[in-house]
């Protein structure tokens, strides 16, 4: 009883403690499997490479004729076969063209044999294999096996079946197992379409190897000299050879290098695999960007993508560079690096191993010369200075330095000196040869980075035409080795700009006026300081140039082309030697004297114009205002006959007898030889100064006053009223309109 009670209690307790909330009846458990994995490091492809050889069965040429050869295995070494021979097909016999080379093999030579090759491998190495397979008389089947060559334990990599329509490509990846240092790659004949044991399974282009491994080796050759030492200025030819020492194709293969500071690229010198390349991008397999050179290598490389480099292939990238003076005493260190990709990881760019080439460079001087200052040359304006600065840019002091200056033909009289110390306090006058056109300056020693100046001074003559170019050349040389010749000379050119400043304008005046000439004179003008100087004057009449004078001392001009009784406006401009002209001078107006011309003389008041008219040709006939006849009347047609000079307001002027054209003996005359006012004017026989009249032009008007030479009174219209029959009178000159008259030349 106790036992049963205990058992029942145990069962109840079990369910209470164990059964609550645990799926009532099912139990679970968990196991684990733990492992380590590691990503490949493709750089391991280079250490060491493994590769099958004679993959295309070309190691022994079976001849040019189409043939089938039962070759002993030694002919196709290192291939080995379990068959008695290796059957080699050549040159498309039977209508089957080898995919690679000129030969391929038939796996079923005499039996269902196995063709294999043992390759040294590294455990863990990633190997890729590939082959071309084709049936002979139908679908043939083979099998790839890989395994340990030492033990003979092989693992199938699958079977391959192909017909006669073409070659079938088969490939795979294999990782060398631990401890396997020699791997056997075997191709096993499985079946043939015909069942014939010796007919079937063509094979070509077999590969079995580790990944690609590009290496770059760079060499340099001095193109300038054969000395053992490289010097600044030498042209170096770099040849970078990229080699695939791996077991498979390197894809996207490219080389690049950035030239160090000590060398500069020679444009157009890149050659890729024997073909010259341009420097620009996008058109071929290489380009230059700044100091970086890039070349895409291998088969099918393009302007943007690198090509493939087969195992054992070596391709070259060649370019030239010039050693710079700054490299003297140092070494030029060039690193050509490459990139490529493995077909198994095409997106993983690999880099070639480092390849650095160091080229020691010897010291050298580098004397340079450059323009220091170029003058602004104004002909005749003083001394102009051309200057140059020579500097030693090299790595070695320059000894026996000299500068040779070549002058233009017009500058043989120039002064040329050069400094001979860094401070410029010591100078030397340069020796003159070649008629003064060549000057040799003995500068002497120039330490590193020091400068010497060469100065050419010359006063350009004023007559030098504007635009003349004056080019002074200077060349520097040294007895020390100076490899860089491109900076050894300079040309300093200045253009004569000439005088562009106009001289001042003169002040014009008239010295005399006659019926046939107007004499002008003016004050002396001046040119600007440093200018070409006053060369003469140009005279204008009514805005038209009528003549010039030369020099600054001749400052008079007589215009003899005038017409009598005509008013002209004169101005003058000053000319300088450079052709500059001043502004116009002041304008003076002169009216030539009447001469032999006939005139109407009229008086205008308001809108009424009346002509001075004699009553008749009789002596003492009154002179009155009458209507102007058209054509004119004989009694109102006058000629002016010049007489003795008289003085008006202190100025000596000619006087005239104003006579009727129809009766040359009747002239305007005062009624009484007196200076009294209001004396009637009449025409009388010419007798004395009281029948002579001076003509005074009213300023700003084309009107004249007539001043009686005897009485010094003026012809006057009483009351300033223009009415017919009004007799003219004399009256003291008062500058009123009563004394202003207009002359009309009837002969023009």
């Amino acid at each position, binding site marked *: 009883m*106790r036992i049963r009670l205990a058992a029942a209690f145990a069962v109840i307790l079990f369910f209470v403690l*164990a059964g609550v909330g645990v799926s009532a009846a099912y*139990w*679970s*458990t968990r196991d684990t*499997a733990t*492992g380590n*994995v590691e990503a490949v490091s493709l750089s391991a492809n280079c250490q060491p490479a493994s590769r099958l050889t004679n993959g295309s069965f070309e190691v022994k040429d079976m001849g040019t004729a189409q043939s089938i050869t039962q070759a002993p295995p030694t002919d196709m070494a290192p291939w080995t076969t379990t068959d008695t021979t290796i059957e080699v097909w050549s040159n498309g016999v039977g209508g089957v063209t080898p995919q690679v080379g000129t030969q391929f093999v038939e796996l079923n030579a005499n039996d269902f044999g196995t063709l294999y090759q043992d390759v040294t491998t590294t455990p863990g190495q990633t190997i890729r294999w590939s082959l071309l397979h084709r049936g002979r008389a139908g679908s043939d089947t083979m099998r790839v096996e890989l395994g340990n060559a030492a033990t003979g334990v092989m693992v199938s990599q699958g079977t391959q079946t192909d017909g006669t329509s073409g070659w079938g490509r088969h490939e795979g990846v294999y990782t060398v197992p631990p401890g396997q240092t020699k791997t056997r790659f075997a191709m096993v004949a499985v079946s043939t379409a015909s069942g014939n044991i010796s007919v079937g399974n063509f094979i070509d282009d077999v590969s079995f190897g580790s990944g690609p491994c590009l290496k770059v080796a760079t060499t340099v050759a001095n193109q300038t000299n054969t000395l053992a030492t490289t010097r600044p200025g030498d042209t170096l030819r770099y040849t970078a050879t990229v080699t695939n020492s791996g077991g498979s194709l390197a894809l996207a293969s490219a080389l690049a290098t950035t030239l160090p500071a000590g060398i500069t690229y020679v444009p157009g010198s890149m050659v890729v695999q024997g073909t010259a390349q341009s420097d620009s991008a996008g058109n071929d397999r290489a380009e230059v960007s700044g100091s970086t050179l890039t070349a895409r290598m291998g088969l099918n490389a393009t302007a943007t993508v690198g090509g493939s480099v087969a195992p054992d292939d070596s391709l070259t990238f060649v370019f030239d560079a010039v050693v710079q003076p700054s490299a003297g005493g140092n070494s030029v260190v060039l690193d050509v690096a490459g990139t490529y990709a493995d077909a198994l990881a095409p997106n993983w760019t690999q880099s070639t191993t480092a390849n650095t080439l160091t080229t020691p460079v010897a010291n050298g001087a580098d004397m340079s010369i450059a323009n220091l200052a170029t003058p602004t040359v104004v002909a005749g304006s003083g001394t102009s200075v051309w200057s140059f600065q020579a500097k030693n840019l090299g790595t070695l002091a320059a000894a026996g330095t000299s500068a040779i200056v070549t002058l233009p033909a017009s500058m043989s009289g120039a002064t040329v000196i050069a400094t001979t110390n860094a401070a410029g306090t010591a100078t030397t006058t340069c020796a003159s040869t070649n008629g003064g056109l060549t000057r040799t300056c003995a500068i002497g020693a120039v330490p590193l980075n020091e400068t010497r100046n060469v100065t050419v001074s010359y006063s350009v003559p004023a007559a030098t035409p504007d635009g003349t170019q004056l080019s002074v050349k200077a060349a520097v040389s040294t007895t020390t080795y100076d490899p860089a010749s491109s900076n050894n000379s300079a040309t300093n050119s200045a253009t004569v700009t000439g005088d562009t400043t106009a001289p001042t304008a003169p002040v014009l005046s008239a010295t005399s006026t006659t019926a046939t000439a107007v004499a002008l004179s003016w004050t002396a003008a001046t040119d600007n300081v440093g200018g070409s100087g006053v060369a003469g004057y140009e005279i204008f009449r009514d805005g038209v140039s009528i003549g010039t004078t030369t020099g600054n001392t001749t400052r008079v001009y007589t215009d003899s082309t005038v017409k009598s009784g005509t008013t002209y406006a004169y101005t003058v401009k000053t000319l300088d030697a450079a052709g500059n002209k001043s502004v116009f001078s002041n304008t003076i107006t002169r009216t030539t004297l009447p001469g032999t011309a006939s005139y109407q003389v009229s008086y205008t008041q308001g809108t009424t114009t009346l002509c001075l008219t004699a009553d008749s040709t009789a002596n003492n006939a009154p002179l009155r205002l009458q209507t102007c006849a058209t054509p004119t009347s004989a009694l109102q047609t006058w000629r002016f006959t010049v007489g003795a000079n008289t003085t008006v307001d202190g100025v000596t002027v000619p006087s005239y007898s104003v006579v009727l054209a129809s009766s040359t003996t009747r002239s305007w005359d005062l009624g009484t030889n007196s200076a009294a006012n209001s004396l009637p004017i009449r025409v009388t026989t010419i007798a004395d100064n009281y029948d002579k009249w001076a003509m005074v032009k009213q300023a700003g008007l084309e009107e004249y006053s007539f001043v009686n030479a005897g009485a010094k009174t003026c012809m006057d219209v009483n009351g300033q009223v223009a009415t017919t029959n009004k007799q003219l009178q004399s009256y003291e000159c008062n500058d009123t309109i009563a004394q202003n008259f207009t002359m009309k030349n009837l002969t023009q």
Partner: protein
Amino acid sequence: MSKLFARAASSSKARRSPIRGMLVTAAMFGGAVLLAITATGGTYAMWNTKTAVNASSVSAGATDFTINDVKNYTISGLDMTKMLPGRSVITWTPLVLKNTGTTPISITPGTVTWAAPSSSTDSSTFASNLTVVVKEAVVANGTTSCVVTPYGTAPASFTTPIKLTAGQTRPVCVEVRLSDNASSSVQGKTATFTLNLEGVQVRS
């Protein structure tokens, strides 16, 4: 993972002394308590629901399996094959799952965990590009082997649970695939994974 078989002694028709009877009762009580406590704390011990429960006999079964005879198996040599983008590494020889329990068991792939990267984020990046699967081995012509999933085809774990009766075995393979898009920065990086396999008792 311990096993427990609680077994009650057979009853005896012979009369025993009172002292002995008291000792027997106490021992049986203690055994029942031990059985109950152990069962509640176990991870895989089971109660065989088919086992008859009576006053004289109470028994418990076991749910358990092993991988190559151990609960936590360490795969060696998997890292001998270096991984390439889009390609796999796989166990050279199959792993053997064995039902070491007394009841049928159903095994399914569980989660995969990665050991924390020791120092660099690169290892983490590497792990994030890896896929771990467990699949049944291929048996042909009497040979059992592990076959890599072809390039271009994503590997996959078995989807139908593997059911093993007590003592039964099944060969499986563990395959790890590196993504085709993995960057070159993972080159040479290593990672350690733990693949869980879940076993559940099933009715026979």
